[in-house]
């Protein structure tokens, strides 16, 4: 059995933002199993090239939109169209609140769209809430080849 099943895949190109997010997650006790991808390509590589075992599939993907190489929406499309990964909840966490981004994201099947607040307090709260919601409250979909491991179900 692989220990520490992956909880969150965080896809964000800005190291500062990554640090802030991890800080917030840590404060919310949600940062134990977090994988960071710095751009879309890394994210896809992570999900498709190495994702043999169910334990490697994250429970939640936090996806920024503005990414170099392969941008957020493309990652979203790719992930949601592949049967291996399409059930993974994806929350877009981005600075932009542009309507067209929101619309497109939902059209591609995103599970949630959250605008990162500028104020850090609010940002921290947002991260905590969404982490709690998706990792603790939400019933995660069972992985295709996974047996129910105790770490996932609460």
């Amino acid at each position: 059995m692989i220990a520490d099943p992956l909880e969150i895949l965080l896809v964000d190109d800005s190291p500062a933002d990554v640090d802030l997010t991890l800080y917030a997650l840590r404060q919310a006790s949600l940062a134990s199993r977090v994988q960071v991808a710095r751009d879309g390509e890394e994210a896809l590589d992570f999900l498709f090239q190495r994702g043999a075992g169910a334990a490697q599939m994250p429970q939640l993907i936090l996806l920024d939109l503005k990414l170099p190489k392969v941008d957020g929406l493309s990652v979203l499309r790719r992930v949601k169209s592949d049967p291996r990964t399409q059930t993974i909840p994806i929350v877009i966490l981005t600075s932009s609140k542009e309507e067209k981004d929101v619309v497109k994201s939902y059209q591609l099947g995103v599970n949630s769209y959250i605008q990162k607040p500028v104020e850090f307090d609010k940002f921290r709260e947002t991260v905590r809430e969404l982490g709690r919601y998706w990792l603790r409250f939400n019933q995660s979909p069972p992985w295709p080849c996974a047996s129910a491991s105790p770490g996932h179900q609460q």
Partner: protein
Amino acid sequence: MRRLRSFAGIPGPRWTACPFQTQRSLLTAGGSKKERMQFLRHLFLPDNFMPHGYCYLWAPGLIWLHAVSDSAIALSYMTIPVTLVHFTRKRRDVPFSWIFVCFGVFIVACGMTHLLEVYSIWVPAYWLAGGVKALTAAASVGTAILLIRVTPRALALPGTTWLLDLNRKLSAEVEQRVRAENECRSISEDLERRVAERTAELEAANQMLRESQLRYRALVEHAPEAIVVFGLETGAFLDLNTKAEQLFGMSRAELLRVGPVEVSPPVQPDGRRSSEAAMEQIRLAIEGGTPPFEWTHRNAAGLDIPCEVSFVRLPSSTHTLIRGSVVDITARKHAEEQIRTLNAELEHRVAQRTSELETANRDLESFTYSVSHDLRAPLRQVNGFSKILIEDFGPQLSSEARHHLERVRSATVHMGHLVDDLLNLARIGRRPLALRRTDLNALVEEVVETLQSDPRDRGVEWSIGLLSLVECDPGLMRQVFANLLANAVKFSRPCEHPRIYIGEIPGEFGPIFFVRDNGVGFDLRYADKLFSVFHRLHRDDEFEGTGVGLAIVHRILQKHGGAIWAESSPQKGAAFYFSVNDSRARPKVPAASLRGDA
């Protein structure tokens, strides 16, 4: 007398031989002059007879009586014919004037006898006297006979009284006739006058007719279009005006030999044969006239001329006449062509402009997109790390350091608001209005509810009037109320009893809505840029704000075609009036300055 007497006193026969014998021999034998003289002497002074004096015994009284009487008689007998001759001469019209001549002769002869009677008293020229008497007898017998023969005829001559009567009658008749003649004349004059009048009238009418004809002819001739008349039976032109000659390039005489089909190309531009298409149009014209239709003619030079033709049937009892008006629309077609070209150009240009605008819009979109992403991220990071600094390293920092970091943090927050507001403003400009009849009261209720969620504003007293339904974009109008009410709330927070009134007043062109508060107000002197971006009338430490809220409100209302204005004075609250659909709106009654109830 003495000579006569003495002469007469010699008795004795001197002659006994008849002078007539001598006379006969004078006549026949052509006697000598001496014999003639002797004859005459014997006739006039015979010496063988006794003068009458002897009968009278030469009593002087008796002789004088006879001599004077006979002389008088002879004298008057002589003068009477003269008178008669004069009379006949003068009155040549007297019938039977020859009877007067007879009488004249007879009386002259009678006079002669009497004269000879007197002569005979002294000279016994009894053969002379007897001869003259015989002449006289002949004349008188003749005259008597003639007279008797003439008398019935003379009797038949109308008498004087009869004549006079006749004359009178004639006069009367003449008078009558004259009267009648006068009447006739006057009637005739009257008639003539009337005839003259009638003639004048007729002439005038004729003149008018001629003028009218000329006028109409002129109308036809000077009409800007070609006018033709043709008969259906022959198919040839019966009449045309000068313009038609010009249009078809043929003389009148030539045109009168042909018809409309001959001055058209065999096939019309739309492919129909001219003869058939023409018949079709003619048939329509007979039925009830045609609207103008396009037709291509061909003139004498072979040039095709696009025309606009309209047919109408002319009233005629004998023929089927069609009047056609033909307008050369070459220029018009050319103009149409030009218009089409220009339109195409215009559309092309519009398309160009539209694409330019679209490009500009897209640029703006990508700009705002970048802004929304790229500006916020660093802000957040600055904010985040400075907060972490404060939290994690607070104890190690001096209070001044902490204070500085705090200010860094709040600056980033402020900038975040600015970015949000600016993006909002830009977005409003781009979005098309989604107009709907909206219940503003519902909108206001929602906004108020949101505002009331802030605990600071629980004490605000809301007074919301009944608002009309308006045609607007509900999302944008919500923003208008959100901004205005948020402002009202913000600026009346210092008050003890903040009151906010929302209502509507009637305007000339539609309802005017207002939001009034009893807050701190502002000085109108500095308010000319009230609705501009970033312009603030209060300091940041008094009231926070980006200075974009009113600009957004103004932009939204502008997009709707409405208007907004404000009235305020320091410490007396502020009132914002706006109309949604009519930029001409102004309140009927200028709003009084507010008196704070607080």
